[in-house]
């Protein structure tokens, strides 16, 4: 279980998080929605200690991670896999080396087993025969799927998805959402998904949380979110230009 308590983070004058409280239950799929630049990615990067908060606490399976030393944080990161917004593939390495990267550091698999896992992970995301390609030879959607294969290769308990369906065609996007759903059902992984895509959110989420003004202003099941009386939430989920959220 992940528990975020009263989290604050600013970058210079820009107050991004202003007292976020959030609990993510084991095995659930939580979708975090919010405007672009509202701090969703910043919030998620706090969970693996990439960003340190100005104030507040984060507990992962009961361990407070904010003040952990790098070596201790490393053990906590082992529980997580992350799909980055732009895939963040290492562009000096071929696809197979990208997928292996976490495996080599987090497991003691023999080379034969590693090869097997690479093929298996790529097959899971619908890719075959791309092991020896460089990232620049892949399309945006393929990069995203390799990023996902890299994130799931070492069987993490919690997977963080930063905009998994952005930048790919609707059919591939739906396939990725189905994969996330399958991972949850088959492997019981906890998933935290950042997205603007409400169709995908309703399909895959156990709960949806909306981040606005540096705080979680609403959290509930997809049905509860649809019925929310909060005008900000209604404006966002219906994608309306007019409403309490400032457009620019």
């Amino acid at each position: 279980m992940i528990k975020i308590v009263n989290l604050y983070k600013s970058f210079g004058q820009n107050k991004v998080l202003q007292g976020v409280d959030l609990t993510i239950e084991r095995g659930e799929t939580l979708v975090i929605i919010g405007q672009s630049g509202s701090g969703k990615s910043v919030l998620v990067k706090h969970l693996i200690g990439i960003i340190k908060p100005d104030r507040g606490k984060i507990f992962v399976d009961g361990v407070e991670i904010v003040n952990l030393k790098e070596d201790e944080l490393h053990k906590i990161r082992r529980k997580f896999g992350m799909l980055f917004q732009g895939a963040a593939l290492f562009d000096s390495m071929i696809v197979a080396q990208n997928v292996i990267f976490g495996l080599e550091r987090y497991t003691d698999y023999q080379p034969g087993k590693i090869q097997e896992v690479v093929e298996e992970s790529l097959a899971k995301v619908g890719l075959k025969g791309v092991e020896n390609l460089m990232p620049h030879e892949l399309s945006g959607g393929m990069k995203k799927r390799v990023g996902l294969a890299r994130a799931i290769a070492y069987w993490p308990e919690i997977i963080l998805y930063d905009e998994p369906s952005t930048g790919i065609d609707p059919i591939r996007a739906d396939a990725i959402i189905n994969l996330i759903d399958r991972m949850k059902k088959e492997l019981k992984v906890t998933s935290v998904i950042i997205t603007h895509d409400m169709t995908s959110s309703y399909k895959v989420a156990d709960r949806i949380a909306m981040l606005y003004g540096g705080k979680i202003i609403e959290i509930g099941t997809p049905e509860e979110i649809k019925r929310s009386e909060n005008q900000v939430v209604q404006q966002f989920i219906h994608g309306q230009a007019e409403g309490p959220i400032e457009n620019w």
Partner: protein
Amino acid sequence: MQIWNFTLLNLKMINQSRYSLLFSFFQELGEVGSLVGKTLRNIFRKPWEKNIFIQQLEEVGVRSLPVVSLTAAFGGLVFGLQTYIGFHRFIGHGSEAYGGPIISLGLSKELIPILVGLMVSGRVGSAIAAEIGTMKITEQIDALYSLGADPNRYLVAPRTLACFIMLPCLTLYGDIIGIAAGYFYNVVLMGVNHFIYFENTLLYLEIWDVITGLIKAAFFGIIIAIVGCWQGLKAEGGAEGVGKATTRTVVIASISIIILNFLLSKALPGTLSG
């Protein structure tokens, strides 16, 4: 009264900007200090990133050979030329052969380490800043963290160690090329007496002169790698940010090399033979 208020306001602003400049100077000094400390710790800690280290040895050393060859050769030629003119003008015909030790000493102690430092900071320092800066803005550094690799251990430590080792090697190689070029200009082109030139060079050039240049080069190597990594890791704002990081790396590293060269020349003993 208005003018007085305006002047006070300006003074206040100047003071504030001075304080913020001073603050950011010490902040950046702290950042570099912390990066150096962390890198030194990681260089001595296992497991080492052997493959990255070997790649960097090739990138910093082998691939810099053409540029070092060219600069050292022309540095040696021009230094040989000016020494020849100097002896010819101030002492007279026939004295040019005594320029041998001056050329060798000047090249190995000062000119070659500086030239190699500046060339490698332009070629390797900028490449380090551009590569790490691009990794930073495309979230590859974040990906390293998420996949259990410490970016300092994976990126900074191997590059720093490679520059620390390869800069003295390149300098020694540059010394040989430069001294040979100085000899070529004086003895082959200008017909200076080979025996006197060679004899004097061997008589007055100490091994310590060469070692002094190599010690300097090792420090320059650390500066190039640390400045490149530091600027790359703090790059932000897309392609423009990477471009600025690259430019700043070359400027900061070059200036630091020139200043440090003087300080080391002053601090290191001129000779070990008393």
